[in-house]
């Protein structure tokens, strides 16, 4: 029996500084053991516990897509002890990885539907995983139209800049990148994510909206989607909670009787409505 508490060794292969404040970095990790790599079968939307001995563990959403072979990526904001330590690491360092954990974006449910991806700031990581998965040559045909709306406070705070550019250039999706406030070099869109959603007005016809972002963005974005005719079943989001074990034993990440680590982090709005508002 595999011990679910024991992390697998991984090497930090590459570090990408995502934002100009350097507070968000993407870590590309490579498995030390081939068997671990084979076992780490994940789906977009899942997360894993990154760990540094002597500091602890931190649950982080997986930012890469399972179609990316040979590595797994995590985008980490510097906040607590573990994430600060991660930010101080250099390429080549060895850390621990435990997972994959949690449910995922419901790929089977999304199949054949038009997908509207709405992301704000740093909460975009597992949406990036989903996007890259759906845009993979072998997967693309499983999904309908893809509309992506992604915003950050400033141009410097947009994550995954090279990919955003590539997505904007793609003909099989529509990408709208926006910033709350541009700077002298910014030639793109300005405006809050909810406003842009209103302008873009994606059709709710056979469509699912997948929304992740800071609470204030979600609060103002949801009414826009209701107005567009999206039902609560067709709006999905991913919750964040303080977690420890990651598989439903340690008892701290529950919202009502659901455990975000094991029953989530992905929930539909309809599911959340049935749970106590304690997150």
């Amino acid at each position: 029996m595999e011990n679910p508490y024991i992390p697998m060794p991984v090497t930090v292969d590459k570090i990408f500084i995502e934002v100009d404040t350097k507070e968000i970095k993407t870590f590309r990790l490579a498995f030390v053991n081939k068997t671990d790599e084979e076992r780490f079968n994940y789906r977009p939307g899942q997360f894993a516990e990154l760990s540094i001995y002597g500091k602890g563990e931190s649950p982080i959403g997986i930012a890469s897509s399972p179609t990316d072979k040979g590595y797994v990526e995590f985008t980490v904001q510097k906040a607590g002890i573990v994430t600060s330590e991660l930010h101080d690491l250099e390429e080549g360092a060895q850390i621990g990885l435990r997972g994959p954990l949690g449910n995922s974006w419901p790929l089977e449910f999304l199949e054949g539907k038009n997908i509207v991806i709405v992301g704000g700031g740093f909460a975009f990581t597992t949406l990036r995983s989903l996007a890259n998965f759906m845009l993979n040559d072998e997967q693309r045909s499983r999904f309908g139209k893809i509309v992506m709306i992604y915003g950050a406070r400033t141009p410097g705070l947009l994550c995954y800049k090279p990919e955003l550019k590539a997505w904007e250039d793609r003909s099989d999706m529509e990408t709208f990148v926006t910033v709350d406030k541009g700077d002298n070099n910014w030639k793109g869109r300005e405006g809050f994510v909810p406003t842009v959603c209103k302008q873009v007005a994606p059709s709710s016809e056979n469509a699912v909206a997948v929304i992740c972002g800071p609470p204030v963005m979600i609060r103002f974005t949801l009414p826009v989607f209701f107005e567009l005719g999206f039902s609560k079943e067709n709006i999905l989001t991913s919750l964040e909670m303080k977690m420890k074990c990651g598989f439903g034993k340690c008892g701290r990440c529950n919202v009502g009787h659901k455990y975000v680590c094991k029953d989530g982090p992905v929930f539909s709005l309809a599911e959340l409505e049935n749970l106590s508002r304690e997150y």
Partner: protein
Amino acid sequence: MITKIGREKLQEFVAGLMKSGRLFAPVKEGKGTNFKLITDPQSVTLDFYNTIQSPKAVLFPQSEDLVNYNISHDGIASEPAPIDDGSRIILGVRPCDVQSFEIMDRLFNGSGIVDPYWSARRSNLTIIAYAFDRADPVDFYNAFGITGSDEQGSDILMVRDTNSFLFKAFTDKGTKLLETMPFLEKGTADDEKRMTEIVDKGRDIATRTLDTAEIHKRLAGIFDSPYWEEAAAACLNCGVCTYVCPTCHCFDIQDETLFGEGSRRKIWDSCMFSDFTLHASGHNPRTKKSQRLRQRINHKFSYYVENFGIISCVGCGRCTRSCPVNIDILTVVEEAR
């Protein structure tokens, strides 16, 4: 079949048990008793109503190493801490506490990913239950269909007679354990009768009780009620209730390092503490003590029922007895309407 030993020979019995595995039994501690690993048969006492802390620590210690590591200039060397899964015997577990193991099994052993620490020790555990011979005003195990002399879930049931202890095994494991102690007397027909009498008496102990029908729905229905403010008004938000509880199982995972040597540890935690749900960002979904008390009650009487089909409480009364401000869990649940 009944076996028996004179009360004066308790130490001999304890020494006999110690030969079959690590023995955990009640030992005087402070003004009360607690389950301890027994190294000296003389330390065991069976003169107690119930222990201050529950027996859960026998399978789920307050702090347990997951990984041991060593951090040096050359890097980090780590290895999983060995799971201490040797055979364990618990002597003197009250019938309500025996049920707590079954409740915890559903979480640690029977749902989704199995917890290897609990699981390994659980399968190597022999439980000697100890029937109550009196009631305490605080207990309410009757509410969960548990009686004062229930053998359910135990390997051996022990009762106390005037001058002796009587035993009856209910599992093969129990029978075999008793057979390792030839000095135990074979019970006579009279002893048989005595045992039945004592068990009957134990069964008739009337504790407080609670209408548990649809309780999880009732609690779900009043989640937003101002009741919780009222119920938690006196609460100090210490962790006593959760640390003495036989079914509270929430834990933290922490790295504890000293001079480069350390361990990643599973450590009991309490939903009563404000940092239990505090995010690294500073956000906390439960900032108020009323929210935390509500979580504790709901976790036991609502969420656990939803997830595992059983109320996560055995009515042992420990939390009420140990509460510094006399918050009574039964009253809190009863008045939650």
